[in-house]
């Protein structure tokens, strides 16, 4: 194994496990407090240091580790023990194909900021995401509990329903970019296209006219496929089972749904899994639709070229890498904020509304999108020859 792969993997893993996993609980508390005009959790302290509530995740962890691990009578002990594992590990592992930067060469060694650059990257994420569903379904089934069983049936139906529209909605994107590899999609999104380019084509202006070149638009997924972006976001939020799609948990109707019989850190792992998945959703949305690690109108080659004149090529590559990582995680943080906004704004859907949205609205729309996208791509190809 190459050193760069190890460093890239360990770096990303420590960001997820040591930064996002604990701090997401803090983000959730503080943002709900912000939105509801409260102060939020800030009482936990270590030697008088409160650090605006950042100590709370630590106390949470200590509390959960020291709680009794209750396994109900009649439960399937093996499945009960292994379900938190199945629910969390896929969420962490699906980060492996998401690029958080491009490829850089400094002092003779090349660095590609993705753990595993698989050519079927998106398919891998969907496949791994489906495994996480087993964690929830079996968790409710294993507990020998009526509420848990109801939650487990609801999880199964909801996740199956939304997986279809989630998978089909992004097909248009792959038709445009012609790849499933997330690094290639990231590179493709750094390009721009001229909105008025057709004027030149029809001979209404000579090539190189200033006003034709003036309006350029980045080739982001969000601009090329705006409707699928919302379909995908809605479907993947439903996959994550957080409010407003939390019918499988439904505290007020089926108490806690599929993880009702869990206590201690096993319970904590289900929550952690959901919160890590919030980060996965943000990272995937950023990589597919919001340009990945790129800054609009500033392609990476331009950044490296400009910095090379100032600092030389090696240092320029390192600086460009740092910029890319920051840009990517800034987008991820913005999307996490957005997801928390949704979570704390909308009330829970009724179960028939959830199913109707998935099968009657999102699925027909995403199929129609494939047809329209294909037609437009071929029409543009015909016109421009």
């Amino acid at each position, binding site marked *: 194994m190459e050193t760069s*792969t*190890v460093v890239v993997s360990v770096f*990303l*893993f420590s960001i997820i*496990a040591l930064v996002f996993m604990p701090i997401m609980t803090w983000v959730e508390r503080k943002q709900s407090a912000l939105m509801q005009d409260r102060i939020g959790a800030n009482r936990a302290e270590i030697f008088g240091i409160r650090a605006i509530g950042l100590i709370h995740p630590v106390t949470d962890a200590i509390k*959960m*580790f*020291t*709680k*009794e*691990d*209750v*396994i*109900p*009578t009649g*439960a399937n002990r093996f499945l009960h023990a292994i379900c938190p594992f199945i629910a969390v*590990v896929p969420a*962490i*592992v699906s*980060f*492996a194909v998401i690029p958080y930067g491009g490829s850089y060469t400094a002092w003779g060694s090349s660095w590609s900021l*993705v753990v*595993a650059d698989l050519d079927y990257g998106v*398919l891998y994420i969907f496949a791994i995401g489906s495994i996480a569903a087993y964690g929830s379904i079996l968790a409710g089934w294993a507990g*020998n*509990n*009526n*509420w*848990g069983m109801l939650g487990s*049936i609801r999880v*199964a*139906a909801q996740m*199956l*329903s939304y*997986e*279809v529209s989630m*998978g089909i909605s992004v*097909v248009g994107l*792959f*038709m445009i970019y*012609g790849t*499933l590899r997330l690094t290639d999609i990231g590179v493709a999104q750094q390009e721009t296209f001229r909105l008025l380019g057709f004027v030149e084509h029809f001979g209404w202006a000579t090539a190189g006219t200033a006003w034709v070149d003036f309006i350029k638009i980045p080739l982001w997924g969000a601009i090329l496929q705006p409707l699928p972006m919302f379909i995908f976001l809605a479907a993947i939020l439903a996959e994550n089972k957080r409010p407003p799609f939390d019918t499988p948990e439904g505290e007020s109707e089926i*108490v806690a749904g599929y993880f*009702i*019989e869990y206590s*201690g*850190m096993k319970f*904590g*792992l289900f929550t952690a899994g959901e919160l890590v998945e919030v980060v996965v959703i943000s990272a995937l949305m950023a990589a597919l639709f919001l340009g990945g690690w790129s800054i609009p109108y500033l392609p990476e080659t331009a950044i490296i070229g400009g910095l090379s004149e100032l600092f030389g090529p090696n240092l320029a590559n390192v600086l460009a890498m740092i910029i890319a990582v920051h840009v990517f995680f800034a987008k991820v943080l913005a999307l996490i904020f957005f997801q928390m906004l949704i979570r704390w704004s909308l009330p829970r859907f009724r179960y*028939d509304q959830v*199913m*109707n949205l998935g*099968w*009657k609205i999102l699925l*027909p729309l995403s*199929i129609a999108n*494939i047809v329209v996208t*294909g037609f437009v*791509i*071929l029409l543009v190809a015909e016109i421009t020859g």
Partner: protein
Amino acid sequence: MAEYAGLGLFLLLGSGLVALFLVLTSVLGPKLRFAEKQEPFECGEHPIVSPYQRFNVKFYMVAVSFIIFDVEMVFLYPWAVVFKGLAWYGFVGMLIFLSVLTIGLAYEWMKGGLDWN
């Protein structure tokens, strides 16, 4: 195979961390067990019915529809990647395939297979 090295390392790190959590929580917590506490939660009552019972047939409909459309998805992905090369030929071919499935969806919809009342 080189690109799978990072994936393997990531899987190892992730499952190691979660396994450590699971072991720690079962070791560190107190162990006071008695029959009433070990009972499955039923809002304070003794559970009298088994959770493993028959459930609504609509969930079965969802499962069947899911299999159909998930297989469709599997066909769509490779087609989407080579779409520009196939051009109109591939487009019309997929249009026929999609219309068959869409008619199926419309039929299910009309028959009430997607209604939850």
